[in-house]
């Protein structure tokens, strides 16, 4: 669990820092930030391959958000390996609630847009 947090922290920090540096290299007179919306996953990967600053910053954000979720998933596994069934259940409920709120939030977003 410790290493998940540390890897997530270091990876996203490096990407955030390099993304910002690249942004100022690519835009010597930065006025308007470029967009960070992608029509497809493929477009995002292409932008990433081109080392566009915006794509790197988006990747850093993804890693950041994924870190605590990965931590919860890994703790389910750790408790299962240690045969601590009570806590497999407790952590399992957390995973379930996370899933339900994501689905509800997604539906809610669809309904207002």
């Amino acid at each position: 669990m410790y290493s998940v947090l540390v890897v997530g922290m270091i990876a996203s920090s490096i990407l955030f820092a390099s993304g910002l540096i690249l942004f100022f290299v690519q835009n010597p007179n930065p006025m308007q930030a470029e967009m960070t919306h992608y029509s497809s996953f493929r477009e995002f990967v292409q932008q990433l391959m081109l080392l566009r600053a915006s794509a790197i910053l988006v990747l850093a954000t993804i890693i950041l958000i994924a870190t605590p979720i990965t931590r919860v998933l890994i703790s389910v596994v750790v408790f299962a390996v240690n045969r601590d069934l009570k806590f497999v259940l407790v952590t399992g409920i957390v995973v379930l609630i996370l899933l339900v709120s994501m689905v509800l939030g997604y539906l809610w977003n669809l309904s207002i847009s």
Partner: protein
Amino acid sequence: MDVTLIFLAICFLAAILAGFLGGLFGIGGGIIIVPFLSVFMGIPIHDAIAISLVSVIATSNAGGSSYLEQKITNIKLAMYLEVATTAGALVGSIITLLLRSWVLFIIFGVLLVYVSFTSFKSRATDERRMITNEFAAAKQDGISKYLGLTGSYFDASKKKEVEYRVNGASKGALISSLAGVTSGLLGIGGGLIKVAAMNMFMNVPLKAAVGTSKFMIGVTAAVGSLLFFVTGVIDVYILAPIALGTTLGATVSTMIMNRLRSYVLKVGFGILVAYLAYTMFVQGLLLGFGIKLPILG
């Protein structure tokens, strides 16, 4: 949004401060970042909340890992309360739709005034209870006993191992679920309320509560962040310096927290809670009665 080097540098410096305080008190720092971005930097409140929420994850990763390494975090307690906070966030968002939000703000304001007051009043009790061994001798309730919620950490200011047995599991869960509600309402991780719930109602020493809260808030914030991310309202250019700053600030403060006396932490905690209570009243009075109080900071 224009992105300039100076703008980003100011965000970075403010975020270091937010991350520093967040590490000391087991909170995400949203109560600092949201007003900073919206009042001082002129960023729309919704964007500010989204950026703040994602940055809470950054400080939780940094601070949470540091407290894990120092063995201050109680992982089992964190897992148990995560059920309550995530469920609270879920139920809270439904309640929010039914109840007028100013009522919620006022209720939380009153709750926080109580927490702040109790924090000042009990500023010396943590150290007294360590000496009289009350943390270790407490009688556990059914849930805490069943889940085996006990813990210990090495207190660097007292130079001794502090053992504790968790009790009041249902009361603590109820209050943590309220923390989940505030998280959905205001874009904050609800760390202050979690720390208060553990320390005041669950027989957890303040430092263990801070470490455990720091570990938990990332999960609470991840849900909301994911939604903001999917809808594409996160400004990654502002997020970058904020996330870097809070990571740095939290890393530094988590290294010194354990060396401070609980007494000092409690007083600081009480001041922060009083400030949060005030902002709740500001929001509540504005939304309910159109009364405008000045925002500090």
